[in-house]
């Protein structure tokens, strides 16, 4: 019982930090019911795990006192910023996203996803860690960063544990170590309790972003489709970093997309934060952030292209402490950046014979994805006029970049490409899912408003 209470306190701390940051960045913006809490939770996860990393660099372990202290301190700081800037925000009550909070439909969404949530909760807190990567990598790292400040931990230089990827980003591990810190010890069960909240936050974050683009009922249907996608259910409670990364990608893409459509600077800053959290969550986070920046540059009108450079510089600047720590770690053979050379790529191009069919086959893996990729294709055909919009082009550029990055990674991998594809491709496709859902929304919205050219009244109803 105490585990449940302390885990809930930890989740509340995350929401508290995230809500204060959101308030400081976006002011009094109104959200779909549940959308603000979800966005705050997603932001809070990244902010708190980053703060715990900085503290660990300074020699402070995650403990109940240190976590609650940093929560209170950061919340007060963010609230101070909000008070200072109050009245200067672009998003006053007159520019709300939606005129009402849709409490009924949000309530319905919560009820519908309850069964998914129940299973994710069972898979996370009903059984101990059971996934290979969760045990070998993320669980071990969480114990390491809980027991010792990272600058002292011998683990990071112990090559006999290189199978656990000593240089993998530490965001998810610090998120779990935070639970251990609140509990006062390692607990294999409650360590994963945060994953249920991540699942719920992902669903409502998507719903919030989708409601801004399309009719609330369609947003509801798309959000539930995303929530019940078999691969999502499969990996949400597994304890690996992929689902946390997916939540951050959803935030980064959703807020950049909104910035492209509405031009509010708060969205741009929030997207930068989410992208830097991606960098701190998995190695894939850095190329994904680069893909977002490049796509932004390619899709933006001429006068706005410098924002893409600003975006990339900001993401890299926020991630500097992590890059600095990374430089102190031993290099392992699995250094994908160092392998991105003609010497590695050209001799391995014949791997494309294995990689490309596997990528194609994954899109028709109904057991993993249902018909979600077919839905994307159908929506693109029906709403093809959406290709004319820069925001839709941004989403497509991101989608293509993400796929190309993953194909390239399989080309240069030091492992057997086929074996690696077998164990990882579904999880990599999870990273592409948020962009795909936004694309479905963009195309369908275009299909709905053309040729009548009358915007659905539902957006403001």
């Amino acid at each position, binding site marked *: 019982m105490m585990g449940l209470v302390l885990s809930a306190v930890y989740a509340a701390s995350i929401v508290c930090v995230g809500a204060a940051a959101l308030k400081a960045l976006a002011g009094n913006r109104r959200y779909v019911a549940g959308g603000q809490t979800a966005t705050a939770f997603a932001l809070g996860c990244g902010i708190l795990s980053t703060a715990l990393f900085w503290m660990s660099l300074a020699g402070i372990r995650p403990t109940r006192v240190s976590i609650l202290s940093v929560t209170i301190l950061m919340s007060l700081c963010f609230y101070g910023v909000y008070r200072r800037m109050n009245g200067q925000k672009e998003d006053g009550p007159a520019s709300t996203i939606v005129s009402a909070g849709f409490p*009924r439909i949000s309530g*319905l969404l919560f009820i519908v996803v309850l069964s998914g949530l129940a*299973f994710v909760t*069972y*898979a996370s807190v*009903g*059984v*101990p*860690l*059971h996934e*290979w990567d969760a*045990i*070998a990598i993320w*669980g*071990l790292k969480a*114990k*390491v960063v809980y*027991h*010792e400040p990272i600058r002292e931990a011998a*683990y990071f230089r112990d090559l*006999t*544990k290189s*199978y*656990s990827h000593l240089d993998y980003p530490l965001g998810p591990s610090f998120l779990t170590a935070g639970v251990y810190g609140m509990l006062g010890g390692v607990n*294999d069960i409650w360590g994963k309790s945060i994953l249920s909240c991540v699942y719920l936050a992902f669903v409502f974050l998507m719903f919030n972003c989708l409601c801004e683009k399309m*009719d609330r*009922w*369609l947003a509801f*249907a*798309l959000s*539930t*489709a*995303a929530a*019940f*996608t*078999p691969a999502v*259910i*499969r990996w949400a409670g597994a304890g690996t970093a992929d689902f946390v990364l997916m939540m951050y990608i959803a935030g980064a893409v959703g807020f950049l997309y909104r910035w492209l459509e509405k031009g509010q600077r708060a969205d741009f800053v929030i997207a930068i934060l989410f992208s830097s959290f991606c960098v701190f969550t998995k190695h894939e986070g850095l190329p994904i952030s680069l893909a977002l920046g490049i796509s932004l540059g390619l899709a933006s009108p001429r006068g706005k292209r410098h924002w893409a450079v600003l975006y990339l510089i900001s993401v890299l600047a926020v991630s500097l402490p992590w890059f600095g720590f990374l430089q102190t770690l031993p290099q392992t053979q699995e250094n994908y950046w160092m392998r991105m050379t003609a010497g590695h790529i050209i001799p391995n191009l014949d791997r494309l014979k294995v990689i490309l069919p596997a990528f194609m086959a994954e899109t028709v893996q*109904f*057991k993993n994805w*249902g*018909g*979600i990729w*077919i*839905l994307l294709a*159908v*929506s693109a055909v*029906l709403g093809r006029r959406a290709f004319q919009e820069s925001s839709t082009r941004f989403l497509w550029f991101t989608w293509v970049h993400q796929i190309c990055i993953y194909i390239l990674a399989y080309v240069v991998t030091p492992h057997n490409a086929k074996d690696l594809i077998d164990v990882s491709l579904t999880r990599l496709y999870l990273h592409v899912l948020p962009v795909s859902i936004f694309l*479905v929304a963009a195309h*369908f919205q275009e*299909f*709905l408003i053309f040729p*009548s050219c009358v915007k*659905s009244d539902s957006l403001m109803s």
Partner: protein
Amino acid sequence: MVDSLYALLQRRQPRFTLVLMLILGLGFVPSIILQARKDSWIREFILESRQDNPSSRIWLIKDLLSLLGQSGTSGDIGLIYQTNRTNINDVEFVYYTLNYLLYPRRVLIGPSTTAIRDGWDILNMVALHHEHPPEWPTSVRSVGIFFQEANGRWGIEFGERGGSS
């Protein structure tokens, strides 16, 4: 709620209904059906996590956790891991699991008195007992044979972290 949705559909353009049906038909409904099927991952997982499935990895971890919990920081525990297969993945899994579970404690593997730091050392020690020399990862096969031959019975004694073991 259903009535209001029905009324909403009647009011909307046919395109709206088509889009809603496409999202439900290609996104939501197949996902629900797939997960209710016999071969769905959810069912597999729930069956796997039942205690009466001795080969379940989940229960291997549970047993390990339980043993470690009982043993505290000292005393002997016996870990029995039985498998009908000699599978490289199973051996690797035990190795990763031990590394995870034992961190940050130092351990001894009985009856030897050699200090064991982690699962790597355990695997090497296990391999030493076999006729083939340890050559990770090629020695995995011989370690696998050890499990089959000896039913994977280990005695693990805990020592204090960083102390003399």
